[in-house]
């Protein structure tokens, strides 16, 4: 009996020891750096035959380098990547595209590498690219695109989107356009035109002549349709404009003042506010059958409605509490809840395409702020502060906001300017987007390549 007890004791002792020796040491890594990822964008290689054709057709000597520059600029503007200087590259573009010497690229501290090739096939531009993980020494992504040669900038944007998505885990926002109101002239007599450009400020086109005052253009999230407000005989009208075809139509004649039209997430309705009998409320209009439906019915001023991405909720601002604040309600107008409770006035709420945040403009102690809060009103974060700024609009991936900022005028009424700015959710990556003239009321399109 004693022997058995002794034996079991020994067994337990050994088992305990074994379990102790096999337990793996765990180390929790809960912090990292937020430094931009060092990335090398090698110029896309091209053969001599293609080079001559590019010179003829689009008068560009080195299309490969031009496309690489577009990609590099996009990545840099995102604030998440640090494109490395080409002077440090050791390997030639054509050889790097076949098989990169990873030691050379890791030597210049690159963690990712983009290589590519451009050529002409049946009078069409064919662009191949590969994304390499330098440290793991393997290919991460390889794609090729075919298009008309004049479309080369868009190819650069699409490649950036693919690279961005592969490395960050969220969709890109580079193959997009921004519609805005272009302004010129003295502050009292501004000429306002509707303009559209690529998100990086290139390819600006003017859509209206500037005879009528235009305001608040907004993209349809599902296609290239735009809705905007224009004054005709001093009365505001809501217009629908198809950018692809250039056709324009009046969405409807509404009594009194109309404000801030915006599309529903499925693109089938327009939500807006208009004043009826001296009271401003929120309405929706079906684009197909033009049936108007009243959503709010309150004696206060309800404006700036915006749908949630699933279409189930609407956020808007109202002064029903005595001051202008942000509210959320069901899409049928029921269950209205106030979500902003901070000091100051809140306006222009816009629901993020990702669904998790609401962007807004805040006025407090004479200063304007662009900020975000969660959909229940908690976690308010002010991203940027200035003398005057408003009208935030989300990039399609819900990570970057575009808005416009005005500068002070001097005593003579000079020095006024309005420019477009973008800022990401961290609040650190704030950049001005260059436009030919002054610009206001921007709206970001959805991805064109979808």
């Amino acid at each position, binding site marked *: 009996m004693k022997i058995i007890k002794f034996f079991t004791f020994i067994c337990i002792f050994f088992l305990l020891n074994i379990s102790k020796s096999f337990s793996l*040491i765990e180390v929790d890594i809960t912090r990292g750096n937020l430094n931009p990822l060092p990335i090398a964008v090698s110029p896309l290689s091209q053969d001599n035959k293609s080079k001559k054709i590019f010179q003829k057709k689009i008068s560009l000597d080195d299309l490969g380098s031009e496309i690489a520059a577009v990609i590099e600029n996009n990545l840099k503007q995102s604030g998440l990547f640090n494109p490395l200087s080409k002077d440090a590259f050791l390997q030639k573009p054509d050889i790097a595209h076949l098989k990169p010497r990873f030691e050379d690229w890791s030597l210049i501290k690159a963690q990712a590498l983009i290589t590519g090739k451009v050529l002409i096939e049946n009078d069409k531009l064919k662009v191949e690219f590969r994304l390499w993980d330098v440290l793991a020494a393997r290919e991460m992504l390889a794609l090729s695109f075919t298009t008309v040669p004049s479309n080369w900038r868009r190819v650069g944007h699409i490649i950036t989107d693919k690279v961005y998505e592969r490395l960050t885990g969220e969709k890109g926002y580079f193959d997009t356009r921004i519609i805005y109101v272009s302004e010129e002239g003295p502050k009292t007599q501004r000429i306002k035109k509707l303009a559209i450009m690529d998100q990086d400020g290139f390819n600006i086109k003017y859509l209206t002549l500037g005879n009528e005052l235009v305001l608040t253009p907004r993209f349809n999230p599902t296609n290239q349709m735009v809705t905007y407000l224009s004054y005709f005989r001093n009365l505001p009208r809501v217009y629908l404009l198809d950018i692809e075809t250039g056709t324009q139509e009046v969405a409807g004649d509404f009594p009194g003042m109309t404000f801030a039209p915006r599309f529903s997430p499925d693109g089938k309705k327009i939500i807006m506010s208009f004043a009826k009998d001296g009271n401003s409320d929120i309405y929706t209009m079906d684009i197909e059958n033009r049936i108007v439906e009243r959503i709010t019915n309150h004696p206060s001023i309800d404006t700036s409605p915006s749908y949630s991405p699933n279409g189930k909720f609407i956020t808007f601002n109202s002064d029903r509490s005595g001051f202008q604040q942000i509210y959320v309600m069901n899409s049928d107008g029921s269950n209205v809840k106030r979500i902003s409770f901070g000091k100051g006035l809140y306006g222009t709420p816009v629901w993020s395409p990702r669904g998790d945040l609401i962007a807004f403009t805040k006025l407090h102690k004479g200063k304007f702020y662009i900020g975000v809060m969660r959909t229940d009103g908690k976690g308010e974060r002010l991203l940027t502060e200035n003398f005057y700024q408003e009208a935030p609009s989300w990039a399609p991936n819900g990570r970057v906001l575009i808005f416009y900022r005005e500068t002070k005028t001097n005593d003579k009424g000079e020095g006024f300017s309005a420019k477009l700015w973008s800022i990401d959710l961290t609040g650190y990556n704030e950049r001005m987007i260059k436009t030919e003239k002054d610009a206001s009321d921007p709206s970001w399109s959805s991805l064109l390549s979808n």
Partner: protein
Amino acid sequence: MYRSLFISSGFHLGIIILSIFTLPFIAKKPIDVPPLVSVELIEIGKITNIPFAPKAKKIIEKAKKKNEKLVSEQAPPKKVKKEKNKKVNLDINKEIKELAPKKTPTPKSEIKKIKKEKLDSIALPDKKTENVPLEEEKKQKPSKEIKKDKNLKKNTEKIKPNIEDAKVKQVSEFEKKELFDPNNIAALIDKSKEDFGETNKKLNKITQSQDSSMDFSKLTLSEEDALKAQIFGCWSIPLGLPYNENLLVRIKLKLKPDGTLIKTEILDHARMNMPGQGFFKVLAESALRAIQLCQPLKVPTSGYERWKELQLNFDAREMLGG
């Protein structure tokens, strides 16, 4: 009558004794005992979580170099120590001779030599520093040298005439003259074994009590902090990840004694290719990049068996505010 006398005398005696022993103490003031302060002793090794500021590091390195120079130029090291070291390494005596002049040239010439060795690649300062611990390891590895010790006894007889020749030829060389005493080799080898064990323990800074109380399932605070601090610097967190998801990647590592990687394994590998888990793949890849970028990892200098397999849990929730 007598009883009462005894009782009274007994009481009196008692009172006298009590007064003798207690009265002086009563007169004394009570001692003010300061409140106890508990102090936890934590060993902070050279490797802590706070890396030296680059300037301070340079100054310390310079000071170290100066000290080394002073020792070699002014005061030659003690005979006994040299004998121990060199006799242990008898087999690699030639290597020592070759290495000795390499230590003297200026840093510039060293870089040139490394360049020559690596024909195509350009020498990095990192690579140079990587080589240093390897040399030290060669000297410190007990297992190899103990094996060599067995051969030493056999070789001594063969070496004897050569050494004597060398003695004749290199009379002027002070150090080499003193090195070899073939008669005492065996004894010295035994001594060297003991000494090696002692020095090794000193290097590792492990006392007997620590040895027995060491928890083999954990790294010490300073060891863990050193490793964490290193990886924090290498890990670029993908900022595009959604806040509300499970942002934890567990990676198992197999390491060499110098901290370089043998193998990495993502423990939840199945999640990599699951639909709707694209963010996990991105996070896992970023973690792998961090490990690759950081290697050789700052692992403890001792207890390889303890940490030859490690699990790193990369958790981005704190950073992304989830």
